[in-house]
């Protein structure tokens, strides 16, 4: 029987995340992957502004705290500064990656920048207390859409994987979820695929991970998991949207 142990990819710092939030699981998946691929010592993580802003205290690799939305630009600077064996990833929420940092995300992908974006989509701004995100679902109630997101007024949610997959520089784009153990295992596999694509220098990779926010959704952790299954998965279909892991983008 394999023993369940803490990964050395994470530090011993206690995490600040709310009960039932899936950030902790995703941190672990990323950290385990870096260890299993033997690249923790070559990894540089770029952390966002948002709930994961203090992830530099949790990942046991070198980290940079980036301005809001700018992580892919910072990652570009780091990746191009270091030998190509370095492994550079960003860890960003939906507001960071799909609103204020849309240009940075799109252009890093268009350049085929050999970095990996870990994109946490929980359909809400968590750290600031539950405002509408670019990924908030139609009719979803948030602090700033108190009657539900009216798309005729607030616009439509953005499906980042579908959009980024259209770019020639994108090598591996997949959307996964974390609402059941089975989905967590699939998320781990996707994250590993993305880092392998980077290690093999095949181009830009992004894994979108559907995540929960019980605090700001106003639900129990268990209900939040169901809400992902019933509401998010139908709108944000899971799957691989682009796979050039064999041939690469260039």
């Amino acid at each position, binding site marked *: 029987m394999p023993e369940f142990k803490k990964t050395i990819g994470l*530090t011993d710092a206690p995490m600040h995340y709310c009960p039932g939030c899936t950030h902790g699981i995703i941190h672990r998946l990323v950290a385990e992957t870096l260890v299993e691929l033997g690249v*923790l*010592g*070559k*990894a*540089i993580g*770029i952390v966002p502004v948002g709930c994961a*802003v*203090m992830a*530099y*205290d949790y*990942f*046991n*690799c*070198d*980290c*940079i*705290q*980036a*301005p809001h939305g*700018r992580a892919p*630009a*910072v*990652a*570009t*600077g*780091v*990746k*191009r*500064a*270091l030998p190509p064996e*370095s*492994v550079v990833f960003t860890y960003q929420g939906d507001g960071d990656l799909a609103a204020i940092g849309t*240009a*940075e995300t*799109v*252009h890093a992908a268009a350049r085929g920048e050999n970095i990996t974006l870990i994109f946490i989509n929980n359909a809400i701004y968590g750290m600031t207390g539950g405002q509408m995100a670019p990924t908030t679902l139609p009719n979803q109630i948030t602090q700033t859409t108190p009657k539900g997101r009216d798309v005729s007024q607030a616009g439509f949610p953005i499906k980042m994987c579908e959009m980024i997959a259209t770019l020639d520089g994108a090598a591996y784009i997949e959307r996964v979820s974390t609402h059941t153990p089975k989905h967590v295992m699939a998320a781990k596999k996707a994250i590993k695929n993305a880092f392998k694509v980077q290690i093999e220098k095949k181009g830009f990779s992004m894994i979108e991970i559907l995540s929960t926010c019980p605090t700001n959704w106003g639900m129990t952790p268990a209900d939040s998991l169901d809400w992902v299954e019933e509401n998010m998965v139908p709108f944000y279909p899971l799957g691989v949207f682009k796979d050039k892991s064999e041939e690469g983008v260039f």
Partner: protein
Amino acid sequence: MSKKFLMKGNEVIAEAAIRSGCTMFFGYPITPQTEVAAYMSKRLPEIGGVYLQAESEVSAINMVLGAASAGRRVMTSSSSPGISLKSEGISYIAASDLPCVIINVQRAGPGLGGIQPSQADYFQATKGLGHGDFHLMVFAPSSVQEIADLIKTAFDLSDKYRVPSLILADGIMGQMMEPVSFSEEESTDQPDKGWATSGHDNKRAPNIVNSLYLTPDELEKTVIERYQRYDVIAQNEVLFEKYLTEDADIIVVAYGASSRISKSVINTAREKGIKVGILRPITLWPFPTQAIKELCKTAKSFLCVEMSMGQMVEDVRLAVEGVRPVSFYGRTGGNTPRPEDILHKIEQLNEEEK
């Protein structure tokens, strides 16, 4: 004697950076500094460096943040509206104690303004290039040769103090051609960057580049430590030039392009028997406050000449502390002061003092 080249200011910015050990450049096109990027895009690949055109000024400065975090000598260049866009990243860079060199070849503002030379970004450069308590070291060259010399100083001091450097040039400095020679001396003053986020290789604890401190006492401590470094810089790194100031009744204070025009006027005024000299700040931050204070002992009045509505004049007044009158003459909008207008102003002051 090292070899002389006839080169454009913008190209010298780029060449001097490379000779100072800069191997990475991130930029975005904007007049009147585009030759910097064009030169870098040609030269950097030849030396195995990195040139990248970003999708925006915002991204370019964040690429600089990344490259500087990884421990490389890195530069970006822009002009006034583009520098405004970079200000978010500059605040983060300063707060994260990252060394780098930023170029502002100033054009006229505010807004989209115009593409003619200007010095209206003095406030921005010296008082507030972003949110929060911080400074940049600001260097103001007044010749193509001085661009070459100051770029090297800017890189060396930025590494030494872990404070970003800004070269505050203007459209005239960027576009004019003059003879220039480059220092043969290697840029050796690159301290060990043990703090860099370049991967710990499983040999040390993780390095973290960060500007977030949620506890006020902790944040205050980091800011105070940085201000102690600023004090050392203010003590040791002030640069200025004095010309005919010893017996002068009137001291012109001007930097960059306006100092060149002013200097030519000094000689004409002297021929007319007016005792006038010039103090030219070379570092705008730290400002040559003490040098100006000293001149209050001998001079009767000061005249600040700028290509703005009057920005540096405030620092001159702070240095003079009301002991002597401080006048101002400036043109803005992309106009340059005419020598005859500066001379007229000096003659007026001379009459008033009689």
